[in-house]
């Protein structure tokens, strides 16, 4: 009997096209969109070659500055792309946004930019570094003269060599200890998994509605049948869960093989989180179906609206949203199932320890139990009078 119910519930689900769309196609479409939109974002944030112009104002040029800039325009990934212009042309280039700024080699140096920005800041930074290096040189020469109380031959040359030597002997070293997994666009795909888990709620909702006498003709027939309602609901939920898992397996396959998404290395923990996440989604759908006394469209609307809200807060429409909520209103994400799933994947990807992961698993279990308890409370002993 159990298998019979399960089989027919599966058949009913697969025949419902909109449901299949939500479970199978929609996450794949959205994943493709994410991948298209975010494919360049992290690359764009790397330092790129900055186009600038240099204006030589007098014939007596400051060759040191030009030499340094010439040095910075060479190499595999040069910092600057430099053109030498007169002031009028440089101005036109700046207006047309062909360059980020131009440097006038006057005394003192002048830097002209159109607006504030990171490229402009770097240009300013490099120019200042040149000025400051000159200053260092001047100061060290002055100190050397003071120290030896005389002018030696080739003083500048010897100071320059000394500076180079000190630079090489610099004992201060920056050691980068950041985690290698820093690709924050991964969060988008984790929210996608979370969304798919929660949209599974629509399956639960549909199946429960099939059993409610006030919702469907099927429900009326089931109500008067001699089958145990609990059994029917459990087999239906199982069928919903199976379909949901097929959908999410498809999504994982697609995102890993085609979109190259990194979910971390521990398959067991990924599967465990997905199983519990799907269960949380299903229990959410069952709760909405049983607690809200309204028509099916409105219930579906509630599941979708709730899921979108949860996904919004966990970073789907702006990656840093989850962090901002975690930082400012942490309680909101502690009760948000999408955030628990997203954070679970994030902790597997980013952290070496599993404490945070377990906390999310535990929270999801609590959430699911709570949803089911509410549903049971609403569904149990539901009888209809003969009228």
């Amino acid at each position, binding site marked *: 009997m159990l298998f019979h119910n399960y089989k027919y519930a599966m058949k009913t689900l697969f025949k419902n*096209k*909109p449901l299949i769309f*939500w479970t199978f196609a*929609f996450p794949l*479409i*959205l994943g493709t*969109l994410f991948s*298209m*939109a975010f*494919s*360049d*974002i992290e690359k764009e*944030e790397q*330092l790129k070659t900055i186009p600038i112009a240099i204006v030589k104002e007098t014939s007596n040029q400051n060759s040191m500055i030009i030499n340094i800039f010439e040095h910075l325009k060479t190499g595999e990934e040069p910092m600057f792309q430099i053109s030498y212009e007169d002031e009028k042309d440089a101005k036109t280039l700046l*207006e047309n946004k062909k360059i980020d700024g131009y440097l006038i080699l006057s005394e003192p*140096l*002048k830097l*002209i*930019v159109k*607006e*504030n920005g*990171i490229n*402009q800041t*770097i240009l300013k*930074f490099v120019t*200042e570094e040149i*000025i*400051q290096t000159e*200053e*260092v040189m001047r*100061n060290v020469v002055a*100190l*050397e003269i003071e*120290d030896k109380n005389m002018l030696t031959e080739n003083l500048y040359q010897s100071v320059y060599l000394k500076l180079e030597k*000190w630079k090489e002997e*610099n*004992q*201060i*070293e*920056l050691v*980068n*200890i*950041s985690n290698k997994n*820093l690709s*924050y666009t991964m969060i988008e795909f984790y929210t996608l998994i979370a969304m798919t888990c929660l949209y599974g709620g629509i399956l639960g909702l549909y199946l429960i509605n099939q059993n409610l006498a006030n919702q469907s003709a099927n429900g009326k027939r089931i109500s008067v049948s001699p089958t145990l309602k609990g059994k029917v609901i459990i087999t239906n939920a199982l069928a919903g869960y199976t379909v949901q898992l097929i959908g999410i397996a498809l999504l994982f396959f697609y995102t890993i093989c085609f979109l190259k998404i990194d979910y971390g290395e521990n398959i067991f923990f990924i599967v465990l989180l997905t199983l519990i996440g799907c269960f949380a989604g299903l229990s959410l759908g069952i709760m909405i179906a049983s607690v809200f006394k*309204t028509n099916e*469209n*409105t219930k579906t*609307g509630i599941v*979708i609206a709730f899921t*979108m809200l949860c996904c*919004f807060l966990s970073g789907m*429409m*702006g990656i*840093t*949203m*989850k*962090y*901002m909520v975690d*930082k400012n209103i942490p309680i909101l994400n502690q009760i948000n199932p999408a955030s628990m799933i997203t954070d679970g994947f994030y902790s597997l990807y980013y952290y070496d320890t599993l404490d945070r992961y377990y906390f999310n698993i535990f929270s999801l279990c609590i959430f699911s139990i709570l949803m089911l308890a509410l549903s049971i409370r609403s569904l149990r002993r539901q009888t209809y009078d003969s009228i």
Partner: protein
Amino acid sequence: MTVFKAYLKILNKNKFLVILYTVILIFFAGFNMQNNDTGTSFMAEKPDVLIVNENETDNVTKNFIQYIEKHTTIKEVQETEEARNDALFYRDVNYIIYIPKDFKNSFLEGKKLNVEIKSTGDYQASLAEMLVNRYFNVANIYRNVIKDEETLLEMINTTLEKEVFIEVTSKLDIEKFAKATLFYNFANYSILAGCVFIICFMVSSFKEQKVKLRIMVSSIEYKKFNRQLLFSNSLFAIVLWLCYVILSIILVGDVMFTNQGMFLILNSFIFTISALTLALLIGNLVHNKEAMSGIVNVIALGSSFLCGAFVPTEFLPDFVLKIAHVLPSYYYIHNNDLIASLETINLETVKPIFLNMGILLFFGFMFVVMTNIITKKRNR
């Protein structure tokens, strides 16, 4: 009027769903903007840096911290490694500097000193690293020639204070309009999702088999019926649009009353018309209410991701932008960006803006024509 009255009745019957969607979408728009500061601020001049000082605050350490503070935005997070790691991952900070114990003595004595850092690897982090390296390079050179601590620090500071004369030619305050543009770019999603979902829902009620047959046998012409339906829906769309405009005035303030602000409002109005007609077309194409939710999400989220509502267009790959040209959202968002960079208002500068508005209206017109063709065919 019959269509309009019926429309109001259906709206009233489904008020819970309508209000739920509208409120959530308005909340998205408002909440997203409140978090703007760290969200999409890709053009900040100062990198966000976090300093973890494991050292006693002596003069040498203090001087280094003061230098970093002056040139960066110092962030504070909870004093746990997890909070720091989270901040780094979500780009709340670009660079973390761990000042080691015994920093002062190792530095003054020229001993080997490892300063641990964490970096996001983006351009802001590169800038922060350049700042740190510059300080250490200058400090190291002076340490070789100056033995007195106070003189040494003074010399470092005087040198590092040398600045270049910089002139900014643009008079436009980009920051001022950044918030307004962000709000209106995000409104692409909210307006589109709100219009398409609610309007499709309403239209599909008129397309139920029994109702549809009754309308078909009535004397009303299909064009007139469509016109009345468009009018009824436009009332809803205008209310939705007004909600966003009011919200933008509350959140952004005076900027909305400048010329640029007015252009943003006008642009969003024209986009709402285009969204409204698109919604009517979809409502006429798809009658299954369950399928509708999926289509709404694909259209609203799809256009928003592809056209730059969530990710600024400069970060989108070229091929995505090319595809986006076939969507009304592209012209709306492109217009918002143009308006934000509008320095002076003259025929030359506003021409591309009006051209985009024209394209949006053309989209709207095409959607109406297509709706009429479909209704005519289906009524046969």
